């Protein structure tokens, strides 16, 4: 029977799932993802995680527990220290495997390999080799699995660049037809936020679908090429060493300049340190650069849907109002 490897549908799942899945599949494992976030998973996470952690980490606890209940043989929660040279991932990610191991009991074996590419990119393949050894002694096979994983990730990132959102991209990679974009939208709204906040429909109060149904097409930071993000983020007086924060700020700066973007919504998880700063940086640039309408939404486990809906409705009203005024102004001029 193949070994069952569980992957939590949380944290950087939305960045690396295609790689991880392909890697473990090639090694002959069965890949199991935790269920989509629901009230039970969130509550489980809240009651098992330390209070000081941020909402995404608490939620990730819930997903680990969900996998444990599925009786998987392993749970894959790599210790993500750094995924780019000279940069870091949030320290809460770094400590996540330890937090899990010390606060939860009766878990299957945890694969918590360290991924630290701060100094050398080569560290990445080393880390995967270490994981591969758990399942096979054949180094060629591990190498093949890693290469196939990388290829899958490349395809995934390409789909994002082509305008897919993660769920669509996952579906396309599973062989489903790419859905053509409906043209019934009159607005284009950029949604900026950590992938595990904005793409998780439960946590984000379904913001993407909600915006769609209110007539707005959504673009996100992850659909921008890496070069653009880095070029824009380089406008900061000092380099941001958070990889994720850099993507958000870089994307924010790029969206502010883009005349096709009608408004920017920044989604912040309550108790996220880096977010509190990146949000402000983007807000300032949107104010300075000539007023791309900007909305800041803070989410936590207590957030009522009503407050979010009211703000989104008011925001879209504001964007449309401004647009129609500009159109009228152009017409009369």
């Amino acid at each position, binding site marked *: 029977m193949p070994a069952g490897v569980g992957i939590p549908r949380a944290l950087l799942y939305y960045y690396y799932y295609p790689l991880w899945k392909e890697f473990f599949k090639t090694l002959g494992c069965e890949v199991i993802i935790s*269920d989509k976030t629901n009230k039970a998973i969130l509550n489980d996470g809240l009651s098992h995680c330390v209070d000081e952690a941020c909402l995404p980490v608490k939620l990730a606890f819930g997903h680990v527990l969900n996998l444990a209940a599925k009786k998987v043989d392993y749970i894959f929660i790599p210790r993500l220290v750094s995924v780019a040279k000279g940069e870091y991932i949030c320290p809460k990610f770094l400590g996540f495997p330890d937090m899990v191991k010390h606060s939860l009991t009766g878990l299957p074996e945890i694969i918590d390999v360290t991924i630290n590419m701060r100094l050398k990119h080569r560290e990445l393949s080393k880390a995967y080799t270490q994981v591969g050894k758990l399942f096979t002694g054949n180094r060629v096979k591990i190498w093949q699995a890693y290469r196939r994983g990388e290829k899958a990730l490349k395809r995934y990132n390409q789909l994002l660049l082509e305008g897919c959102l993660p769920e669509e991209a996952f579906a396309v990679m599973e062989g489903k037809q790419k859905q053509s974009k409906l043209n019934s939208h009159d607005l284009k709204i950029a949604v900026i936020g950590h992938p595990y906040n904005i793409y998780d429909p*439960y946590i984000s109060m379904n913001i993407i679908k909600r915006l769609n149904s209110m007539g707005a097409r959504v673009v996100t930071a992850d659909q921008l090429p890496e070069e653009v993000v880095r070029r824009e983020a380089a406008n900061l007086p000092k380099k941001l060493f958070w990889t994720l924060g850099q993507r958000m700020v870089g994307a924010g700066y790029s969206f502010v300049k883009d005349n096709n973007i009608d408004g920017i919504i920044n989604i912040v998880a309550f108790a996220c340190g880096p977010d509190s700063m990146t949000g402000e940086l983007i807000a*300032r640039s949107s104010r300075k650069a000539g007023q791309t309408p900007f909305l800041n939404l803070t989410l936590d486990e207590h957030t009522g849907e*009503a407050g979010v809906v009211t*703000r989104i409705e*008011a925001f879209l009203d*504001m964007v449309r*109002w*401004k647009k129609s005024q500009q159109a009228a102004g152009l017409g009369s001029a």
Partner: protein
Amino acid sequence: MTGYLGIDVGSVSTNIVFMNEDNHVLESIYLRTQGQPVKTLQLGLKKLAESLPASTVIKGVGTTGSARHLSAVMVGADVVKNEITAHAVAALQQVPGVQTVLEIGGQDSKIIILRKGVVADFAMNTVCAAGTGSFLDQQAGRLNIPIEEFGALALKARTPVRIAGRCAVFAESDMIHKQQMGFELPDILAGLCEALVRNYLNNVGKGKEILEPVVFQGGVAANIGMRKAFEKELGLKINIPRYYNVMGALGAALLAKEAAAKGNATRFKGFRVADMNFSTGSFECSGCPNMCEVIEISEEGTVIARWGDRCGRWSNALAREQVQIS
């Protein structure tokens, strides 16, 4: 006579206005919601019907406030709008050229920045209700003074005391402390107003460019102490529009008029709504682990609306049934 209804059902107050074709408010009703939005709205409609001539024709209805969806299905509204837009529309009509709207209601507060006649930015209070009407109410109750006299008393202050306004709980303990030390009541009240204004400007108004004309609306605008505190802190003239406490409802009426101008007949069920039997109920759906609390609104025993389900299983089912019936 023809005109439009604007309904604003909020956490603390339920407001209804009747506006004629010239955008004049002919009737306005301000009631305390007291946790009973359905009954209060019915009471308000009844009062309004009594004060309007029997020949009055309602050409459009707009609802806003946190119970806007509930009130919309009850009365048959043509427009359902969020509070920000409704307040902005009303402020623009009352004070043309307004650039800043400060709004403090029962449990929420907001700031709306307008430029060239459109909303350019806004913010609402987030996790904290310090500095809203409910807190002022509560403190007035604790100090044994009617809320209506709060503002006038605060104006008598000679040296307002400094009160920590960051948090309502701390503000209260700070006030008690100042009382025990022997400060005079007017000084404490004025100090509280200043603390609330600071809190508002630091939280809701953070980073916003406040330019004149400034309009202060919402129930708390009745408190002259708060107005003075804003004027002192901002160094700007603060306008309080005539209908300051029903601005949301006025905005909803204006939006209803705009919708009616497009030629659509109103969906208003008539003032008989006041005498109908409405009931609300809720149940926990067991369809998935989300366990959504679904709310059902019934009119004369027939379910007319459902919401609260994340997946749409219940709300959509009802919509389908209604399509089949009609």
